[in-house]
Every structure is written in C-alpha cells, then in structure tokens.
C-alpha cells in the first residue's frame, strides 16, 4: 500500500560544479548547477471506512503539526442558479455554531491550542479543514466533525455573513478585472452551464437559512468524499480518530452536477462590457480548454509559462517592457471537473485597446505558427521543474497536490514525477497543443472599458456585442449614450422644497442635514448643509430647470480647523473647469480642467435625478457623476430592489428601496413612491450611519 517514489530534480549534473581550484580566478558568471539531490516524494496510505469515506494518511514533515481536511464533491456547481452563492455562504456559516457550541466557543476552543478551523466552497468541492499541533489532533477532529455533522446555522450568523458577501460582491462589480473574469465564465460556458452562473446581489439576498440547511444535507456525505490527514501523525491513531469522528457521516450517492455539452463559437466574437468613465480597458481573449484527464496538460503548463506565466514571459516582456502599454499581462488556464478555460488578459489605457487586442491575437497565433526557441523553452521548463522541491516543503503543500490528483482521478505519477513530465515537453509538443487549445479565431474576445471610446476601435476589428457589468445586453446607442439622457429625468417634476434630516451613528443622533431647492430664473439652485460630529459641509449646485444641464458647483467643507473648497463651472464645449482648494499639506490649490461628457452630472445632482426618474419594481437607472477627488466620471448604478413603509416623526411614507453602487460607499436609499421621489432614509453599507427625514416643506 505504501508508495515511495524516488524523483530526481535539477538540470543535468555539471562537471564544473563547485571546483575548489577556482579561488584565484574569481567566477564572473553564475555557477553551473551542482549535482542533483534525489527527492523522495512522500508516500501515503489510503483506506475506506464502512460508510464509504475514503481516508488518506500522509505522514510527512519533521515538525509535530497535523492537518485534517474533508473534501466533498459539490461546490458552487451544484447550487441552484437562482440561489447562486449558496455553497460559499453555507461554508462560511458552517463554523459559526453547532447545537452544542456557539460561534464564540468554537473559535475559543481552536484558538486556545493555537490551531485553525475553516470551511470553503470552490466550483467543484466543499472543503472543511482544521490544523493544529499533533498533540491537539483529536480536538481538531472533534471540532471539525461537530461542524460537519451538527452545524446549527444560527439566523443571526447567516444574516451577518450574507451582509459581508453582499459587500464584497459590490466591491467585485466595481473592479474591471473581476468583471472580466465573471463575464469570461458566462460567455464561454453559457448561462445553462453551472460554471457560467455567477452569484449576484439578488441571488444572494434570496438565500435563507433553510437553504443552507438543505444544501448541507444534500452535499455533506461520506460517499465520494475524501478525508486527508497530513503531518507528523501516527497511522493507527489517525485511523481510530477517523472512525470515531467521521465513521458516522451519513452515506448517500454523491451529488453529481449536470454539465451540459459546451463548445466554442464557430467564429470569434467580440464582447464589450460597457463601464462608462473607465480610463483603462481590460482586454482578454479566451476559449474552452482541457478536461482533467487531458494528456496535453503538461505541454500546456509549459506553454502557459512561455506565453504569460510571469515577468519573464512573452506577454509581460512585450506589452510592458517593450510597448509600455500596461503594468502586467498574463495567461492562465484551469482544470476543473468539467472542461476548463484558457485565457490571456491585460489592463491597458483606453487609447491602445485595439493595438493591444491585435498584439494578443498575434502572440496566440505565433504559438501555433512557430516552434518556441530552445533557450526560451529551457527557461520556462527550468522554472517549473526547479520550483518542484519548493512545493514539497510542508505536509500541507504535499497534501493539497495529492488530494487534487485523487479527487480528479488522475494518475498520481503526474504529481510524484512532475519534473520529469515537465522536462519531457518539446517545442513540437507546445506547437501541437497550441494548435489544439489556443483558438483565437473561434474564441471570445472580451473588453471591459468605456464603450463610448471603444466602439469605433473594436468595430474596425469585427462585429461587437454590448453588455453591462452584470452581463445584461445593451444597445449600441445605449453604449454611445445617444438619446437617453433627456428622456431619463423629467426635470419638470421638481418643485421647490426644504428637507431636514437627523444623522444617526450607531443609533445615536450625531448631526443633521438640510436640503433647500429653489428656483432662480431658468435655473434650479440646490443648497445642502450637513453637520456631523462637528464637521460641516455646504454644497450649492446650479442646473438648468429646462433640461437638467449642469451649470456650476460650489462646495466648502471644514473638519476641525481645516477647510477645503471647490468652485466649478461647466463650459459649453464639454469641459468642467475651476479651482479646488485643499490644505497645503494635501496639495493646496489646484486648477481643475477635465472633459465633462454630455449627460454627466455634478456631485449633488444625482439625488435630484433619481427623484424624477421613473421608479418601479426592478427599475435600473445609471447615473454618470463627476468624482471631485479623482477628477473622473463615476458611474452610479441605482436599482429598485423592493418597497418598504417607513414611519418617521409621525408620518408614514411608502418608499422604494434603491441600492446605489459605483460610488465610494455602496448605500441603500428609501425614496418616496410619489414623484418627486424625496429621500426618506439613507443607509451606508457596512457602516452604522443613517439619515432620517425629520422635516419636509414642499411648495
């Protein structure tokens, strides 16, 4: 049963190595490699419990540490698409309480011995793990089995975790690289494939405690699962612990995800994810890749290193060092349970988007058309094979490689004889797998950036499909911002008024705000004064009462003895100019002169725009607002996500709940259903601050 495999690493033995006679003539070039030192890949043992649980013991390492990991098939690929995000949330709350221990008791128990306990979900697997000193191995088993078998999912913990997931999801939708990764998956796999489905705020909000319980009951079984115990451990003892703590894990047929057949498009497709205000574009090219058992894995690994694995690879050298278009450019591929994907991507300034795309495609073709030169091939292989010993340092490192291989049902020699597999790859192999797995002519070309600057660039290359950041289709006109602004905001609905708000911090009143909207000739003038915890801010914005055109902004803010101010004016030729005054140590006065595309709002106007927008269940409104701090345009996304009745100061308001994202802090607004949709309450995500309406005088 016990496998022991000797592996030899390193390049060829060199006769020149370490010749002691070289003292006088100091070496002026790096020494050749020393003699190879054989590395023995650690052996492991495997047995199966009566309930079908597969147990692997990897006794390895000189320090008395141990880890226990339970891998169960069934990650996000088996969650219902309407509850996307469920697997991750189930994992997150799994360690937050059982019927005999509270969340605090669990963390105290494991912390008290200097150990750790975690659960997580990937596409294909649900994983629970614990690590500790070998002395405390039993406690690790006990806590892990408690959360696996008896998690209680306290309602309060579910809500807390859900809020954290929502915040991080909002943050992701603000990051172009994350948007690109999500879109690539959806476009390559399609929405019908589990890998093409993404968690969204609405699917996360839909998840209830019962869903977590059901998901756990459906997925956490012994059959198909793998319990990996690694470290300085005793076989007999581990076997006894495994039987005691996991022998009762129920067995049932493993949950098998349904993977519909997928294929590349018949010809390359260009998709543009419109992110207005972006000064950079993410540019990527991808196609479907390999299945876990594909023998092309090793040539593809070397290909990936040659193309875009690191700072020494082609994309980085050409796009960054030679062209100076980007900070970094990379390739990647994965190997999940079903078919994987192969992609290249980089983030460049908007003007060079088309040139970058052309260069990326050229580099992909080059791999198909020319063999990789010998020296470049050796460099890539040396890196991959040479780093093998560094990945065998700890029991945990070895355990994760072994577990991946066993769970995917791959030959273990691919792990134990990794350096040989790498060294066997030839330039011909790379060209062959490039011709099979690199298919720019049938791939997905994805660009995330400001469509108004990109449509012409990209349409010169081929037909373009337009999407928003969540993947919803847009029309070309919407991307170019043609004909949408005037109809969006019916400025005639505004009326003069005064509003006052109390500002609550953790439920305690800490300040107030007053909004005043007055008519001056053909203009609306809005004055807003806020005072919170001794810091004041006053903003006056002027805009046209005829068509909502922004005219000017004056802002003054004070914090303690310091003050900042800004005076801005929008010019007819589409620029915003003026002065921003900061304290000297923050940069002092500066003149501002920036492009101000049609349809952009000045800060403070967004609220009025929303108040005259057509709000209804599910409505989405996109606002472009100048960001004073950055001098750029941010795109705020407002979405009606429900309705709520709010009682305030003796009045009752029927409101729409509106989630506003894209600004510095995501927030929830409660806007009166009757137009104009006055702000009744405002909450900030992740912060205990709230604005509540206390006075409303409409004229």
């Amino acid at each position, binding site marked *: 049963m016990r496998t022991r495999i000797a592996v030899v*690493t*390193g*390049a060829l033995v060199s006769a020149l190595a*370490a010749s*002691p006679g*070289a*003292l006088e003539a*100091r*070496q*002026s*070039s*790096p*020494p050749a*490699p*020393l003699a*190879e*030192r054989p590395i023995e890949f650690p052996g492991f043992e495997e047995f199966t419990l009566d309930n079908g649980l597969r147990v692997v013991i990897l006794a390895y*390492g*000189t*320090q*008395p*540490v141990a880890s226990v990991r339970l891998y169960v098939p069934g990650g996000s690929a088996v969650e219902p698409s309407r509850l996307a995000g469920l697997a991750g949330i189930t994992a997150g709350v799994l360690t937050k309480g059982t019927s005999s221990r509270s969340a*605090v008791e669990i*963390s*105290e128990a494991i*912390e*008290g*011995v*200097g*150990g750790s306990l975690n659960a997580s979900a990937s596409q294909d697997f649900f994983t629970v793990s614990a690590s*500790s*000193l070998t002395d*405390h191995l039993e406690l690790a088993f006990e806590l892990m089995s408690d959360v696996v078998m008896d998690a209680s999912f306290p309602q309060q913990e579910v809500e807390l975790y859900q809020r954290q997931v929502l915040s991080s999801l909002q943050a992701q939708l603000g990051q172009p690289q994350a948007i690109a990764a999500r879109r690539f998956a959806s476009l390559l796999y399609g929405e019908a494939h589990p890998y093409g489905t993404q968690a969204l705020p609405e699917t996360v909000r839909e998840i209830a405690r019962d869903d977590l319980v059901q998901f756990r009951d459906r997925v956490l079984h012994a059959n198909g699962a793998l319990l990996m115990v690694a470290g300085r451990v005793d076989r007999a003892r581990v076997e006894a612990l495994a039987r005691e703590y996991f022998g009762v894990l129920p067995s049932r047929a493993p949950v098998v995800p349904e993977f519909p057949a997928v294929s590349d498009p018949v010809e390359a497709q260009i998709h543009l994810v419109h992110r207005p205000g972006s000064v950079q574009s993410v540019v990527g090219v991808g196609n479907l890749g390999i299945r876990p058992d594909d023998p092309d894995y090793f040539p593809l690994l070397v290909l990936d290193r040659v193309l875009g694995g690191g*700072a*020494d690879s082609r994309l980085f050298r050409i796009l960054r060092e030679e062209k100076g278009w980007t900070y970094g450019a990379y390739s990647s591929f994965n190997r999940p349970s079903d078919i994987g994907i192969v992609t290249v991507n980089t983030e460049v300034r908007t003007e060079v988007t088309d040139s970058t795309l052309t260069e990326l495609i050229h580099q992909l073709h080059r791999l198909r058309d020319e063999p990789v030169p010998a020296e470049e091939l050796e*460099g890539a292989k040396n*890196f*991959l*094979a*040479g*780093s*093998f*010993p*560094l990945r*065998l*340092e*700890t029991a945990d490192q070895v355990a994760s490689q072994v577990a991946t291989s066993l769970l995917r049902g791959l030959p273990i020699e691919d792990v134990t004889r990794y350096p040989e597999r790498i060294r066997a790859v030839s330039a011909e192999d790379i060209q062959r797998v490039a011709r099979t797995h690199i298919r720019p002519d049938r791939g997905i070309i994805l660009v995330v950036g400001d469509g108004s600057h990109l449509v012409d660039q990209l349409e010169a290359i081929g037909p373009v499909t337009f999407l928003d950041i969540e993947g919803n289709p847009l029309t070309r006109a919407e991307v170019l911002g043609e004909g949408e602004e005037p109809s969006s905001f019916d400025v005639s609905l505004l009326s003069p008024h005064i509003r006052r708000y109390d500002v609550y*911090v*953790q439920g*305690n009143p800490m300040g107030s705000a007053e909004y005043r909207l007055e008519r001056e000739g053909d203009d609306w003038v809005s004055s807003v004064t806020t005072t919170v915890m001794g810091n004041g801010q006053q903003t006056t914005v002027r805009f046209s009462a005829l068509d909502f055109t922004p005219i000017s902004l004056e802002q003054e803010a004070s*914090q*303690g003895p*310091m003050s*900042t101010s800004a005076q801005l004016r929008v010019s007819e030729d589409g620029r915003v100019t003026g002065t921003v005054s900061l*304290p000297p*140590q*923050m940069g002092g006065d500066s003149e501002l002169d920036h492009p101000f595309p049609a349809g952009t709002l000045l800060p403070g106007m967004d609220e009025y725009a929303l108040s005259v927008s057509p709000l209804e269940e599910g409505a989405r409104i996109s606002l472009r607002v100048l960001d004073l701090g950055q001098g750029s345009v941010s795109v705020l996304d407002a979405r009606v996500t429900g309705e709520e009745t709010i009682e305030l100061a003796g009045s009752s308001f029927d409101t729409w709940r509106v989630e506003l994202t894209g600004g510095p802090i995501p927030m929830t607004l409660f806007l009166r259903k009757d137009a104009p949709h006055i702000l009744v309450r405002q909450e900030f995500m992740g*912060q*205990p*601050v709230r604005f509540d309406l206390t006075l409303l005088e409409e004229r």
Partner: protein
Amino acid sequence: MSFMRRPRTDPNGRYPMNITRFRPWLATAVFTALVSPGSIVAQDAPAGAFPFESYRLENGLHVLLAPDAGATAVAVNLWYNVGSRNERPSRSGFAHLFEHLMFQGSDNVERGEHFQFVERAGGSLNASVTEDRTNYYQTVPPDRMNLALWLEADRMRSLGINAENMAREVEVVKEERRLRIDNAPYGSSQLQIGHYAVYDSASCFAYAHSPIGSMEDLDAAEPVDVREFFATYYAPNNATLALVGDFDPAVARELIAEYFGSIPRGADPPVAECSDPFRGLPVHREVHDPNATLPGVWIAYGSVETSHPDAPALAVLARILGAGESSRLNQRLVREEQAALQAAAGSTTRLGPGIFQLIAIANQGVEPDALITLLDEEIERVLAEGVTEDELMRARNQVRAQVIFGRQSVMGRAEALQSANHFYGDPAAIGTSVTRVEGVSRDDVARVAATYLTPSNRAVVITLPGPAPEEDR
C-alpha cells in the same frame, strides 16, 4: 523590495494595523543550553530545536549551517547587522535605501538579474529591513544553492553604487513612503507610537525614528555617504549567513570559502547608542490623519530588550490582553461594549529597549477618551486580579503552535536561527523559543504589569480623522 514585508492588512481584512506585525521573537529568560560548533541537538530536543553548526571565516563572516536531509529545498539567508538604529540624524532611510540598492547590480550581475537568475532556477527571493537588521534571502532547489551563494557574495563584494542608481531608488523609496505612510490610514500614527512619541530623540535617535526614512534625508543622500555606509555595515564581519535544508555541509563550506573568503574584512562598525530612551515620557499626542475614517487610540509603554528576563512575561501578557478573538480587549471593547472596531495588544522587543502596545480603533461615534478609559480599566483589572491559569495555558499553547508551525519551512528555520543569534547572541536560543514562555508564571505576569504598565511610563497617541493644521512630526 520593500520596507517590512509582513502583510499590511490584518487577517480579517479590516484596517491595516501594526497588530499582526509584532515580532514573533517573544523574549528570553536566561538560557543555559550552549551549543558548540558541530554539536548536535539530541533526538528528544525541545520544541522548535534542530541541529546546526556555527563557524566564522577569517574575514569575520559568521556562518550557520543546518543541513537536513529530510528537507526538499535550501534556504540561503543573509543577515546584516544593520538597521535604522545605525543611522545618524539627517541621514535616516539609508538602511532601507540599501535594501533596494542591493538589487541594482554588482560587478558580475546586471540590474534586475538577481531576480531573473533565481526565478529561472525555480527559486524565490526577497529582502526586508527593520530597526535592528536587514535580511536578504532566497529559497532554491538543492542543486542551485551555489547560485544563491554566488549572487550574495557578488553583491557583498562589489555592489554598484552610482548617482543614477541612487536617484532612481531614492524615488522608489519615496514612492513607497507615500504608499505606506503618507497615503495610508494610521500610517503616521504608527510612526508616532513606534518611534517619535515614545523614544527620546537626543538620547536614543536609534529608535526615535523609523526605518522608512524621511523625504528630506533621502533627497540629501550623496553617493559618497552611501558608499561609506556600505563599507561600514555591508562587510563580512558584520554579516551572518545561514543555510538550512538539503545540502552537503562539506560542499557548502567549500563554496562559502570560495565565494566569500576573499572579501576583505571591514573596520568594526560603531555601536548604536540608546541610553535612557524613555526620559520624555509621559507623552500625549494627537495626530490628524486625512486618510483615517475612524478615531484611533495607540498606547505604548517603555519596556525592555528581547533578551531581558522580563520579555517572556510581557509577551504572555500581550497575548492575554490582545491576541485573537478570545483576548480580553476583543471580548470587552469589541464584543461587549461595541466601542471598538478592533482592539489588540502586542509586545515589541528589540536589540535595545522595546515597547508594549495597546491599540484600539473606535467604532463610529465613539470618542477616543472613552476608549482610553476602557483600555485603562483592562490594565487595572490585570493589576488588581492578575491573569488566570487558563489564560496562561492558552497563551503558552499559542506560542508553542506559532513557533512550531513557523519552523516547517527551511526559510522559517533559517530566520529562527538568525533571530536567536542576533537577539540572544546565540543561535542555540532556537531551542528556548517555547520553554522561555512556558516558564512564565501568573506572578511573573502580574509583576511585569506592575513594573512597566505605569501612567508615567507611557505615550498616548490619538488619531483624529481629517487633515492636520500643520505637519505632525
């Protein structure tokens, strides 16, 4: 290359704070185990111990070899006994500047090639600087140990220092300062509590300034100053080379002699001065921080050097007060009172006198004074009631686990050897990392609390969100 490489954000992803960066070299009692060159630690060694040998080349280079046939890689780890503590007034930031210059090329290695050579061999590398030392390290496959040694020797012998290199790296270091201090929430508060507010600048400039350096001093740096700094501190007699992993010690000795043996010895470097460092205490200071959104309270008490007999008890006290979810400060300030977003404590000891810190970031709407009151109440509770046996046991368990987990990798062991050698004057102190702490009693904890945590022995720094009336310093 950058200044202090440990993660800037805490594991919960909240605010970048110093808490996770308290150095793990907890302290020492007096230890007795002396390991002579070539000796082997017994099979039933204390937790964290491993065999090694220690010798010096004629030029003074100290060498520590810990061959381990069970390892799969080799750590080549070089510590220079120089940090910001060795800098002179108006020349701060030199130690940090060197951490960058050392990658700018030497006689036989072009700029940037150090990285390329090591990476093409499958290795990894890095460097860092603190108040007390500068380290350069690479982990390589066993057959490329010679490459790492050759690269380190080439730059020790012949680092290229010219106006062009310097100008470029001065700009990089200044950019790093902007990123990590001037533009980061709580960056300036951390400098205050770690250095400016606590240590007296006249009697202990060594610790009264930070390794990151000041913009003015960096601008004023001349190649001649920098060459002098290199000649003084980057000499073999001021360095310790540690090799840990799968290698033949005879081959290692030969290669080290070949590559390093002919590098000339330097003059003995001057000793960094630090006497009566806390004579300016107590101090109360406010820092206006335009990058912070919440008020913060930072308290530092003057304490002791790493090798001081009281250091282990201070480390245990810090853990009980403020390490982890179940610590006293987290339980009280974060969970019960919900006054703080985050609260922690740590004992930072150094070659010279160190500090004991308490840190709390306020929740929205909580005044800094309220946090100080809560922190003081927790200190009072320790003074009045001491700590429990259960808390002591948990702290011991945590230290034991941390030491042992840290020694799984060859680099972790190389760093442990270097720390033991540097801070305790004896590499064999790797064997007492755990026992030092296990020897701490409840009485010891109560005694050090009463000795060091006194109102007259502390600096209090308050972070006020928002811009400052004038530059704090």
